C-alpha cells in the first residue's frame, strides 16, 4: 500500500458522479440500493426462475413448513400452503405484481407529474392558481382513501388498482415538481440564461431539469414506497389483486386463516413487503441526505 497518493485524482467530476460518490459512503443506503436492484431483477425474471408454477398443487405436500424445519422438505424451501402450492414460487412471482407494478405506477406518476408540474410551474396568474388550488383540495385526502374511492368507481381488479394509485399519487407529485420548478426559475442563472436568448423550452431542458432531476428521483422513491404499500393494502382488502393472483397483500389475506396453523404462509409475504418498503425508503433517504449535503457546500 502506498502511504501517500502520488497522483492526485482530478476532481473534475460532474455533479452526478459527485452525488454517487457521496451516496456510496452511506452504507445503509447502499445496502438498500442492492436490495432494490435485486428485487427489481426478481420482478422481471420471476416467472422464468421460479421452481414451480404458481398454481401447481402438490397433493402429497400440504402445509409443509420451511425446509430447515424437521418436518420440512427440501423440494419446498419455504414450505407449502394449504393447497400444496410452493410458497417460494408464489412469493417470487408476487414480486412481479407488488414490486414491479409499483415501479410502473410510480414511473407513470412521475412522468405525468413532471409534465403537469412543469406546466404548472411556468404558467402564471389564473391558470397557475386554479391548478394549484384544485390540487390542494385533493392533497387533503389520504392517498389510500383516494385509491379506495377510485376503485369503488372503477371496480376491483389489479389494473384498476394501478390506475387508482397513479391518480391518487399524482396531486402530490404535480405539487412538488411545481414547487421545484418555481424555485429554480427564480434563480439568477435562469435569468442569465434567458438573457443569453434561450427560449422557454431551452430554459426548461438545459436550465431547470438538469438541476432538479435528483429531487425528482427522491420524489419517485417516496411515491414507490407509497405505491407498494397501497397495492398490498388494496390486495389485502380484496379490492385489488384477486386470488389466485400472487400479489403479496392478496397472499397475506388468503392465508390469514392459517396464521396459527402455518405462520410461514402469512409471515413471509409480510417480511418481503417490509424489505421492499425499507429498501426503497433507505435509497430515498440516502439520496435526500446527499442532496442536503450538496446544498451546504
Amino acid at each position, binding site marked *: 500500500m502506498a502511504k501517500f497518493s502520488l497522483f492526485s485524482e482530478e*476532481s*473534475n*467530476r*460532474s*455533479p452526478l458522479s459527485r452525488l454517487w460518490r457521496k451516496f456510496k459512503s452511506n452504507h445503509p443506503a447502499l445496502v438498500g440500493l442492492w436490495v432494490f436492484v435485486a428485487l427489481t431483477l426478481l420482478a422481471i425474471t420471476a416467472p422464468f426462475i421460479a421452481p414451480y408454477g404458481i398454481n401447481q398443487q402438490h397433493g402429497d405436500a400440504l402445509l409443509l413448513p420451511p425446509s430447515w424445519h424437521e418436518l420440512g422438505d427440501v423440494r419446498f424451501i419455504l414450505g407449502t400452503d394449504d393447497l400444496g402450492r410452493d410458497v417460494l414460487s408464489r412469493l417470487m412471482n408476487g414480486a412481479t405484481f407488488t414490486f414491479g407494478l409499483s415501479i410502473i405506477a410510480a414511473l407513470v406518476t412521475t412522468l405525468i407529474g413532471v409534465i403537469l408540474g412543469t406546466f404548472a410551474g411556468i404558467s402564471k396568474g389564473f391558470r397557475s392558481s386554479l391548478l394549484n388550488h384544485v390540487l390542494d383540495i385533493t392533497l387533503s385526502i389520504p392517498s389510500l382513501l383516494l385509491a379506495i374511492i377510485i376503485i369503488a368507481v372503477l371496480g376491483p381488479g389489479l389494473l384498476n388498482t394501478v390506475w387508482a394509485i397513479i391518480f391518487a399519487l399524482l396531486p402530490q407529485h404535480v405539487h412538488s415538481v411545481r414547487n421545484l420548478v418555481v424555485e429554480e426559475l427564480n*434563480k*439568477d*442563472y435562469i*435569468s*442569465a*440564461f*434567458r*438573457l*443569453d*436568448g*434561450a427560449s422557454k423550452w*431551452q430554459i426548461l431542458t*438545459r*436550465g431547470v431539469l*438538469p*438541476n432538479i432531476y435528483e429531487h425528482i428521483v427522491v420524489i419517485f422513491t417516496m411515491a414507490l414506497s407509497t405505491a407498494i404499500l397501497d397495492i398490498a393494502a388494496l390486495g389485502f382488502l380484496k379490492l385489488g389483486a384477486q386470488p389466485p393472483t400472487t400479489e403479496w397483500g392478496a397472499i397475506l389475506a388468503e392465508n390469514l386463516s392459517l396464521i396459527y396453523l402455518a405462520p410461514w404462509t402469512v409471515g413471509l409475504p409480510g417480511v418481503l413487503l417490509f424489505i421492499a418498503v425499507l429498501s426503497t425508503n433507505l435509497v430515498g433517504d440516502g439520496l435526500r441526505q446527499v442532496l442536503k449535503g450538496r446544498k451546504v*457546500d
Partner: protein
Amino acid sequence: MQPLLKVQGLNKSFCTRAGVFKRKHARVLQDISFSVGHGETLAIIGETGSGKSTLARVLAGADYSDKGQILLDGDTIEDDGIRCDECRHIRLIFQDPTRSLNPGLTIGDMLDDCLRLNTELTKAQRDKKIKHTLTRVGLLTEHFEYYPHMFSGGQLQRVALARALILDPKVVVLDEALSSLDPSVRAQTVNLLLELQRDTGLSYVLITHHLSLVKHMSDQLLVLNKGKVVEYGDTLSIFATPKSRVMQRLLNV
C-alpha cells in the same frame, strides 16, 4: 460624437398587491436619462433600494421599463417597454457569480450555449472562440471541462466575465459584480476590466458602493436616490464639488 448608449426618461414601477382589489404602485425609477460614450465608464451609486439594480436589469433586458427609450448606437432598442433587439450588445454581470452560473453545466457547455443561441458559428469556430475568450479573461483553456463548483469566487467572476464578453458586446453592465470579491482579487479583476476596455473599446456601466472604485474606474458618475437622478456629471468634478445632499453625505463633507 454620438454616444454609444443613451437612455431617455426611463420610468419603472412595480405593482404590489395591498388588498384584495387594491394595488400599490412603487415607482423605482423616475425619469432617468444619461449617456455613455465609446470606451467610457459610467458609475452609478446610491443607497440600497435606490433603484440601481433595477436600472441594471432594465438596461440588460432582464426587466422592462414602463416608459422611456434606450438607444444603442443611435438605434432605439427599447421604447416604452418594448424591446426589439437581441440581448447580445448589452451584457449583464450579476452580483453573485455562484448563483448566476448554471451548476449543472460545464463552463464550456454554458459558453457554447451562448454562442449557439446568438451566432451562426460552426462547432469548431465556437470552440476556438470559447478558448480564446477564456484566455482573455485570465483562465486556462482546460477550464472548458470544469463545473462551476470547482472554481473559487474570483475565478467564477472571471467565468461570468467570459460569458459576458463572448458575444462581443458593446456595453457590459456590472451589477455590484466586484463587491463580493476580496480586495486583491478585486484589484486583479479591475485591472483586467480596464485592460479589456483599452484593447477593445468596451463601455462599462458600473454599479457599486465603493467610492474608491468609482474614482479609479469611471469617467462619469450618476447618483441615484429613491429612483431619481440627483447628480450626474464628470466623476472628478462631482468628487471635488458635490452639489446634492446625498453625495455630500457620502463624501462626508
